[in-house]
């Protein structure tokens, strides 16, 4: 199914022959939809405290959805038992304790919002469990001709009907700061009228915390779908969940990925598929039939209310994988660091043209002059790499060097920009 989508999207790559594609401002038509309810209810068979998110649709200009507070949320099973969800934060509804939903039992989600509109889902069955058999990595060249590491997943099932899976991953990798320095900024005096009356001041001192080796963590944010529908057996072999190019820093030292497999039914698969299609680019050659994306939740007692979202039940299985760079690329150069650390700079303590005058007994700094050094440190941009030996020396033009320190981007010096300096609980070396 995934492959098919790729082929069709080949058509999308082409702009128009004699025409043009340009951006335009759509008329503001957001009011048409006065905030439809969005239900994000993805419940698995894990024994845990489950969460359902309720929001409203929001205009393009807005950054965040409006949380839907005060709703009554519960899940009914086919025996009439009810599981209540309580609002723990605006728009976030949790079960009061860890619960487990049963396989092959049907559940219905029911929501009543504060405006009295009732929503209910279709009865959904909890799919049977399919375990992740193996997660492994392989060095290969991918479809866009990039060399790298593919994270592949296998599973096996004897059911006669095809299986549909959604994957998420949680990857953790070691970050080693290339320009680590045991010293770091200490005193930062940004008050021109300090008691010592010595103007602005920056000092360095030995670090108290380790900032050399860190553990970065990233979660998947795209929709990864697989199925056995087009396969001769009901086994998924070598399905690529993640591809990391050789230019991806994540694989530089030691890398770990937790592959999370959600086994859901075909209707859920088709919903996620549509969701995926809607956000892909398109052109005249491939217009996906857009429209209101119908999920499995219906409005019960209103003609105007609209609901988006899905009540997904899935059985869950996960597997973790570790590998080192040398396992696949022995004696080969490492991928570049996350940022470019070639550049060393020396921001001045006082800006060029800094000038202060005394007016009515007060010292007033002219203009909006700020200290480039102190501003950079306070903004978390600069890391200490050494003292400037030429500080305050006068050059041939008669100008004094105003840079007390040599600096680099903070991420080059302090890996905590990218991760945590303590290894996570699951971390295993070698």
């Amino acid at each position: 199914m995934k492959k098919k989508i790729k082929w069709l999207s080949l058509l999308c790559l082409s702009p128009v022959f004699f025409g043009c594609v340009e951006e335009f401002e759509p008329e503001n038509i957001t009011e048409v939809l006065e905030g439809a309810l969005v239900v994000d209810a993805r419940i698995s068979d894990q024994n845990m405290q489950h969460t359902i998110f309720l929001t409203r649709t929001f205009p393009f200009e807005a950054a965040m959805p409006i949380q839907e507070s005060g709703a009554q949320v519960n899940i009914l099973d086919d025996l009439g038992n009810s599981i209540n969800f309580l609002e723990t934060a605006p728009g976030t509804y949790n079960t009061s304790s860890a619960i487990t939903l049963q396989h092959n039992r049907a559940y219905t989600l029911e929501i009543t919002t504060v405006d009295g509109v009732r929503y209910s889902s279709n009865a959904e069955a909890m799919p049977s469990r399919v375990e992740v058999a193996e997660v492994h990595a392989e060095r290969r060249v991918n479809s866009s001709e990039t060399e790298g590491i593919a994270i592949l997943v296998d599973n096996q099932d004897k059911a006669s009907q095809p299986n549909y899976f959604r994957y998420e991953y949680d990857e953790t990798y070691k970050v080693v700061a290339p320009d680590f320095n045991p010293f770091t900024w200490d005193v930062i005096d940004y008050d021109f009228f300090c008691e010592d009356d010595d103007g602005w001041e920056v000092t360095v001192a030995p670090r108290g915390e380790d900032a050399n080796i860190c553990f970065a963590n990233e979660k998947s944010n795209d929709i990864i779908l697989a199925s056995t529908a087009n396969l001769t057996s009901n086994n998924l072999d070598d399905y690529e969940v993640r591809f990391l190019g050789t230019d991806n820093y994540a694989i530089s030292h030691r890398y770990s990925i937790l592959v999370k497999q959600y086994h859901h039914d075909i209707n859920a698969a088709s919903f996620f598929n549509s969701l995926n299609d809607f956000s892909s680019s398109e052109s005249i050659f491939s217009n996906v039939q857009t429209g209101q994306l119908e999920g499995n939740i219906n409005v019960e007692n209103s003609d105007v209310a609209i609901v988006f979202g899905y009540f997904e039940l899935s059985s869950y299985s996960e597997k973790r994988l570790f590998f080192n760079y040398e396992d696949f690329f022995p004696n080969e150069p490492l991928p570049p660091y996350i940022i470019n650390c070639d550049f060393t700079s020396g921001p001045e303590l006082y800006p060029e043209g800094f000038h202060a005058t005394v007016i009515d007994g007060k010292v007033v700094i002219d203009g909006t002059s700020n200290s480039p050094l102190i501003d950079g440190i306070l903004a978390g941009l600069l890391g200490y790499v050494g003292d400037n030996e030429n500080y305050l020396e006068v050059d041939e033009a008669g100008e004094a060097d105003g840079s007390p320190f040599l600096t680099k981007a903070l991420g080059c010096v302090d890996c905590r920009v990218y991760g945590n300096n303590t290894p996570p609980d699951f971390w295993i070396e070698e």
Partner: protein
Amino acid sequence: MSNSTKPIIFIGYSPFLAVKSSRFFFILLVALFTIIATRAQTEVKLSGDYLNTSLKEVILKIESETAYQIYFIDEWVSNDSISVSFQNLELVDALNKILEETTLNYYVKEDEKRIFLLENTIVYDELPRGFFGREETSSNPNSVAVRTNAPPPTFYNENTRKTKRKYAVARVGKSDPNNLRETYNLKGRAINARTGEAVQDLAIRIKGSSIITVTNESGNYELELPAGYNVISVRAMGIAASEREVIMYNDGSLDLVLEEGLQQLDEVVVEADAAKNVEEAITGSEQIDSEESKNIPLVLGERDILQVAKALPGISSAGEGATGLNVRGGKTDQNLVLLDDAVIYNPQHFFGIFQALNPFTTKGVDIYKGAIPVEFGGRLSSVFDIRTKNGNVEEIAGEGSIGPVTGNLALELPLKKDHSSLVIGARGAYADWILRSLDDESLNNSNASFFDGIMKYHNKINDNNEVKATAYYSRDAFSITSDSLYNYSNRLFSTRWDHRFNEKTTGALVLGNSNYGFGIDFDGEANTDFNLDYSINETELKYKLRTILNDKNSLDYGISAKYYSVNPGSIQPDGNESNISPIFIDDEQAIEGALYLGDEIKLSDKLLVDLGVRYAFFAALGSGTQRTYQDGLPRNESTVQDTISYGGGEVIETYGGPEARVSARYLFTPDFSIKASFNNSYQFLHTLSNNTTVSPIDTWKLSDLNIKPQTGYQASLGLYKNFKENEYEVSLEGYYKLMDNVLDFKTGADLFLNENVETEVLQGDGKAYGVEFLLKKNKGRLNGWLGYTYSRSLYRFASEFSEERVNNGEFFPSNFDKPHDVSLIANYRFTRRYSVSANFVYQTGRPVTYPIGTFRFNNADFVAFSNRNEFRIPDFFRLDLGVNIEGNHKKQKLAHSFVTISVYNVLGRNNPYSVFFVTEDGEVKALQSSIFAIPIPSITYNFKF
């Protein structure tokens, strides 16, 4: 005056007056005053047996065996050869037998032992009644009674008619003294002198009388003429008006060979016979002539009858660059496009920008968008009946053009003079340079090319038999990314045998085969190379007949049968390294048949009714597998009940039913009429596309166990009026249309290579209605037309299940619902050589589904779309201008040339073709695309020899 010795009045005319045959002239003059009317009696018995012997030889033999001398003009007897045999006949009977099949009569002067052969006429051996006054009337009542039916003798003096008539006076029939009537029946066929084609809808009028008739589609006519001298005048669009003198002696035939009306060449006219629009019974029909459309400025100077069709009311497309036509609110798959009787599935090249028909070999197209004639069926919305020219049967002719994108050559080769010919056309595109010259780097590697070729054989074996055969192939190949090559092709073959059984009945037997296919070859760097193929093939046998039962009834009836075979697609790995797993979907097969009968009934001079019924039948055949779904549940993977396997040829499901084709016309005055029609139809195959536009990878799907045929009903009513001797035509036509089981697709449907397409499609109902206004000026320096259409096209997918519902089950506008549509096509001729033309289009913007907000799900933001087609893109308008320069009109030159300089989209209007939305960096961006955002100039050079 004595009754026994009446003088003979011998009436002669041109041959013996014109031919200076002194012997015969003298004899006849003598005879004029001396011959006495007596029937020859002779004792001589004659026998003979002649096979393909010249008449002259036979006559001379008779002369030698009897004592008679026979007089005749060589011309009369030299051309005929006869086969006759007789035993022991008297001279008179022998002569009767010999001359039976000729136009010759004879007169025996017994006492002089002379026989005079006469062409056409007879010797009147008595004067017409009242010749010498009326006093004898009462004295011979018996004679009067006998002669009431006799026509007066025809007097004709060539010398008094010194007009520059090109045509000799036609003499028809052989006078039969025993069967003299006041009127005789004349029939024949009208033929275009240059092309040898039948001239249909030629108006034939008898001067000085109200007798008028019109030739039928095969150019045949029949009318009753007063005996004797008549002048008939003929008129038709594209035919030089002319007059013929005809002298009627008896029933007979006369073929009219007609010159083309040269004044037509420069005009932009949707060809119609002078008053056809007013007179015929059917509503919603249009005709476009390929040659005459040449002045209309179109993109890149390509002549394109399908683009011209879009300028007519009721016909549109989703937008520039959208393949397919939407006729009266119907979907693009609802048009039956025929090229020489065989279906052509994709008559367009290059995403609909060019027609896939060679403009030089194409004669024209008849479009039926309202009342579809009973012989056609299988599509709901319209019929485009495209015909290829018959080749020149006289001499080699050719036509060609060189444009910025295509080169084109067509040749007409006579094979047997006046009988058969071959037309060959080929056309190719060299568009690659345009793509390469664009700034956009991503297009520099793309290429696009197309080709179409056609060959038509035509043989008019004789008056009763005509054979035609057409072979056609077109292919498009384009690649947009460097690793994929797309192609699609049409192939068709048709043969047709027209046969005239008798004066009343004509028939045509048609055998056609069509194939349409597309493929994708993907050859990238990775291990995912594949080839993909889809094809549909159909073979049709059709036998249609037309019988003119009597003055009032003309019957059309026939039978047709079609066999479909569809390969819905397969994917195969390309090369050993490909990891693609092959996918095959079962082939589909079906038969479609129809039986029809129509009667055009002329109830009175004013009221014409066309009644037709057609029975359509369809059977989906195995081998194959079909799923059944639980009743009362939406069709999806979880409601599958059973999977049924069918063996080869086993019937999976049958559909069908009667279709009515009814129309009526009432003439208020000869140039003002009202018409109404009703028809319904079935359509058994559908296109599957999740695109809003038809792209070459749209697949055709046959109805099966789960997908029902579409059905449609249309009623229309219109008023038609011509002014100033048909110089202006005005029509106003309204229609209302209902459709059932129309296909649309669930949101985000994945249709390609899906074995269970029924879970992705919706079948709902549609309605469309509109009013079409058309004003045409057919003649003069300024000609062209103005069309305005108000129309709506709405669909509804109502189901109790939300997944099978669109827009809450309410009617919503289709993708091509464009309520206001104005088209103006105008051509102004300064001189014979120079003319300018303009083409203006305004349309309401088409409906789109807008994103109306964002929703957050699964930690990502997605676009929330409005109800389907709730909004519209901005209105569309475009102006094209062209200058047409005819080559000089010198007689001595190699070829006649014609240059078109045109600018498409003069205003440079950036007409949005579609709007779409992309999620980039978590942000939703709105983009609009247009096809021709700038003025596109072009020069095309056409030549003709």
